[in-house]
């Protein structure tokens, strides 16, 4: 390593003594033959090294007693040394979000929004990312529908098929720990509207009765299983509506 260093300085001095002796590395030794790679390196060495240095030094270091001593950078008033949250008056926000427990689900942030909003948007194609990837057509004006256009919205009477019934499905609410009530979390609950109040209340009452009737029937069937007279489970009694 020192031999390479000395030979590099030795070649910069024009026909002078070996560079190693002038730099005080040791007695003058003939420079060993250098491989070709190092020859090319010396050719590329900048002329700053050696006696030509002072003219090419940076102005800030020229008059200093210490080599390469530069001026210290101007200190910023705002550094990591200050509490940036108090500096930008974010204490209230910090206490609000980090002091209390923030609930995980989106429905806690938007409690009044209907439908199943806690599910990932990619499942039903309602993700915001898809809006960015495929932005909708904008710029057209919205004009109200005329009578001719409204004829296209004449619908058939009757309920929707079950596969299209999405509006009435609500997310599961608080799980009741009472053993008497048997709530099914997957059951779609009807929404409270003035138009749907009376018939669905009646349906709720009817639902309570068939549950009790079923329990009684199950008990009867269990008793009848043991008796040799009855053929077996027929199970042909009419049930209530599928909507519960």
């Amino acid at each position: 390593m020192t031999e390479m260093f000395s030979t590099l300085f030795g070649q910069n001095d024009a026909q002078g003594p070996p560079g190693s002796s002038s730099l005080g590395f040791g007695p003058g030794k003939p420079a060993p033959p250098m491989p070709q790679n190092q020859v090319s390196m010396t050719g590329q060495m900048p002329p700053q090294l050696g006696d030509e240095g002072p003219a090419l030094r940076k102005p800030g270091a020229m008059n200093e007693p210490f080599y390469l001593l530069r001026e210290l950078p101007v200190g910023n008033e705002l550094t990591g040394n200050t509490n940036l949250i108090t500096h930008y008056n974010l204490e209230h926000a910090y206490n609000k979000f980090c002091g209390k427990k923030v609930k995980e689900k989106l429905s806690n942030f938007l409690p009044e929004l209907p439908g199943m909003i806690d599910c990932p948007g990619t499942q039903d194609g309602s993700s915001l990312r898809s809006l960015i990837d495929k932005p909708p057509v904008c710029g057209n004006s919205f004009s109200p529908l005329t009578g001719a256009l409204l004829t296209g919205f004449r619908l058939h009477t009757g309920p929707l098929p079950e596969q299209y019934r999405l509006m009435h499905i609500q997310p599961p609410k608080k799980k009741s720990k009472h053993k008497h009530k048997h709530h099914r979390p997957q059951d779609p609950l009807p929404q409270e509207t003035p138009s749907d109040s009376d018939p669905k209340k009646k349906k709720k009452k009817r639902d309570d009765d068939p549950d009790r009737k079923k329990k009684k029937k199950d008990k009867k069937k269990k008793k009848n299983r043991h008796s040799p007279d009855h053929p077996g489970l027929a199970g042909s009694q009419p049930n209530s509506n599928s909507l519960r």
Partner: protein
Amino acid sequence: MAEKFDNLEEHLEKFIENIRQMGIIVSDFQPSSQTGLNQKLNFMISGLQDIEKCRQQLHEINVPLEVFEYIDQGRNPQLYTKECLERALARNEQVKGKIDTMTKFKSLLISELSKVFPEEMSKYKAIHGEDAPS
């Protein structure tokens, strides 16, 4: 500023409520519901017009894309704000620690160098002053 958001929020809530009511009408449609449905359809279009008007007031608002990821996952977007604040505070503390450590090292180095090279260090202090800016 908050008024623009309140205005938009109000329009969006009305729009969503209107859509929800349309869904109820459609789920079990009756012939007498046709006029109501037509009215809801036109109310939906006027709602879109109102939302379009709100857009002009909010064109300077920027939303980080990471918030969209939270919403798409069904997570509360306030968690993003919380995590940003926590990360900022942690980073602030980390940088403050580095500054304190470097300040202590500087003072220690100057004191030790002053013991070994008193003359040079006096020149250095004369150039940069006794209290160099940190």
